[in-house]
């Protein structure tokens, strides 16, 4: 029933989008959409597209998927867009990409379709004003959100009567206490991602941000505070030394954290939103019902911050159906669509209001805890050269965590390399 209502609302929204359009519907328009990889749930997107097609008989939507990870998708899209391919009208892109793609002239500015940026972005989570607006132009519309959460073993914290830690030091202390108490040599205190993957960018930024520092200013210029960055990395290394984080952290990828937490080998784990279902729903999870979510700790004297991820809809600059494409993008970014994705796929909403929607809370109870975290979320550095920025930050962070580079040298390297790129 809930579902039927939702569908009705969607149909209405889709119909409105169509009515808003001025193009006559008798011309059949085929829109080709690049809808990410399996993790971006093309199956759910298809349902939304079907809705839209039903309300707009003149439009036919075809889906293309590819590239399992954000990195692979970026590589593929770079090749396609580089060649000014007009075959695809709409792209689903990672939150870190609008600046880069818009900068390259690959994305159609959407101001003409959605209004001025400040108003257009107002109903969404605050991070989008930062990430999706480039040079005063709306480069992409939010599709669904994601964020780094701090998952923890509620049962263990209860067992040792420990409150949710507010700072990294408290977390380290809590971990040590639990590890000592459990006596299991395989039990890790905290699992973070140190392999040179996209997640390592967040691993670098989390302790840095939590000191109240920014990586870049609104214009995208690098504002790295070297001392704070070194302090952040040292925080991780100290936890490695004290056995809270495992020694081979520089090998750990996102799925490793998930699998180890599922296997009951981790007390605290930093990971993306999808992990919740893996912990609570998966058959082979040993921690069902024992998982809690909390805001990320801060540095002493700092403020909690997290890394926001998620996917955006953008119109290709080489599309031959820009107006139709923009209309579909607008539809995919409506509260109704966001709610549909939350209820059906546990994908984090892009509207603050949807987190408290009764249907959503009913379907995904933990989203009400999530909303606090997401609102405090920051975007990773925005740059036309994000590919390079990401590469420099994640390889250096990984090398520091592998102890092949000193934190001081590593940060110095990041600073000198990116000063050229981000100015």
């Amino acid at each position: 029933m809930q579902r039927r209502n939702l569908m009705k609302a969607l149909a209405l929204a889709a119909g409105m989008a169509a009515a808003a359009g001025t193009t006559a519907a008798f011309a059949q328009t085929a829109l080709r959409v690049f809808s990410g990889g399996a993790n971006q749930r093309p199956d759910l997107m298809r349902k939304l597209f079907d809705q839209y097609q039903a309300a707009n008989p003149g439009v036919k939507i075809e889906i293309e998927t590819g590239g399992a990870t954000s990195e692979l998708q970026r590589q593929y899209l770079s090749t396609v867009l580089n060649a000014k391919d007009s075959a695809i009208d709409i792209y689903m892109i990672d939150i870190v990409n609008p600046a880069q793609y818009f900068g390259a002239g690959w994305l159609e500015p959407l101001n003409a379709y959605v209004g001025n940026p400040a108003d257009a972005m107002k109903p969404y989570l605050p991070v989008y004003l930062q990430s999706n607006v480039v040079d005063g132009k709306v480069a992409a519309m939010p599709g669904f959100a994601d964020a780094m959460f701090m998952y923890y073993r509620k049962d263990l914290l209860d067992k040792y009567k420990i409150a949710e830690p507010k700072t990294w030091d408290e977390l380290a202390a809590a971990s040590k206490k639990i590890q000592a108490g459990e006596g299991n040599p395989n039990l890790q205190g905290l699992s973070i991602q140190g392999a040179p993957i996209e997640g390592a960018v967040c691993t670098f930024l989390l302790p840095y941000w939590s000191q109240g520092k920014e990586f870049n200013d609104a214009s995208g210029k690098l504002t790295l505070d070297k001392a704070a960055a070194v302090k952040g990395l040292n925080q991780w290394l100290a936890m490695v030394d004290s056995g809270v984080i495992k020694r081979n952290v520089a090998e750990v990828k996102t799925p490793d954290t998930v699998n180890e937490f599922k296997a009951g080998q981790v007390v605290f784990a930093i990971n993306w939103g999808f992990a919740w279902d893996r912990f609570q729903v998966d058959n082979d999870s040993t921690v069902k019902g024992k998982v809690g979510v909390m805001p990320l700790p801060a540095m002493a004297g700092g403020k909690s911050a997290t890394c926001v991820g998620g996917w955006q809809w953008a119109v290709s600059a080489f599309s031959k159906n820009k107006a139709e494409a923009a209309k579909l993008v607008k539809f995919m970014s409506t509260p109704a669509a966001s709610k549909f994705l939350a209820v059906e796929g546990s994908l984090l909403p892009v509207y603050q209001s949807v987190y408290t929607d009764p249907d959503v809370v009913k379907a995904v109870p933990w989203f009400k805890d999530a909303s606090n975290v997401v609102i405090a979320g920051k975007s990773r550095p925005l740059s036309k050269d994000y590919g390079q920025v990401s590469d420099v930050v994640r390889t250096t962070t990984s090398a520091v965590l592998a102890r092949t580079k000193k934190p001081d040298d590593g940060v110095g390297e990041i600073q000198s390399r990116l000063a050229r790129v981000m100015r």
Partner: protein
Amino acid sequence: MAGASLIERLRDPSETALGVLLLAPAFLLLALIVVYPIGTLIFNSFFDLRLSGGSGMKFVGLENYLLVLEDADFWNATWNTVLITLITVPGALVAGLGLALLANLPFRRQWPVRLALLLPWALPLAFAGLIFAWFFHTEYGVVNDVVRRLGFGSEPTMWLLRPGWAFAAICLTIVWKTSSFMALILLAGLQMIPRSLYEAAQVDGATRWQQFWQITIPMLMPSIIVALIFRTITALQTFDIPYTMTKGGPGNATETLAMLIHKTTIDYLDVGYGSTLAVFMFVLSLAVTTVYLRRIGRQA
């Protein structure tokens, strides 16, 4: 020969006409897939062509070339590439020769041995990298498990997180992957050596060891050289295995030239600079393979 009709003449084209006809498909394909792209590449190397900026193309002459020469990443990647070549090519030769000698023993059943030589060759590079990265995993890898079972070292070694070990692991993987094909070629060579040579050597009083150095190695030389040369070309292009095993890490300790070019062009979207790096790589390959082509020249 007025009687010879046009059809008759077409059935017997002149030597040159026939040559052009036969070579045309190959050269058309090469033009489309190699020559034109290389032309584009060389052209691009004279431009500041950063797709991320959206600022279009700016002619910069030789600036990119000068930048490459000062680029520490370039020299690091070149060094790594050369080192990988210098380690894995002889490595694969020695391992391949060992495998070939073992496989050349008189077995009752030949097929398991042959298949064992063919399998690693048929396994895609990218998968070999994935599988071996898993083998070398600090905690879940079979390598450390064996080390532990043998009772060495209380702390597991972090193979892929230490520059030296990571380099060694990559080289080992490449050697494993490539030695099998090397062994196949050498095995073929071994089987062509006439038995009578060994019999003659035995009559002359040569030990097994002497037979190996005086007969086997010299007789295998043509096979060895061809195998080495092929291997050298592919070693210079090493990409898949370090890409899947370490992504060039830790830091850029295992980054090769091909990876740097791929990263610069596809990740950084710096097409001008990436093209320049590619031109340098081409020159390096060309320098190394000139020797090779001379060799073919002598034989053809």
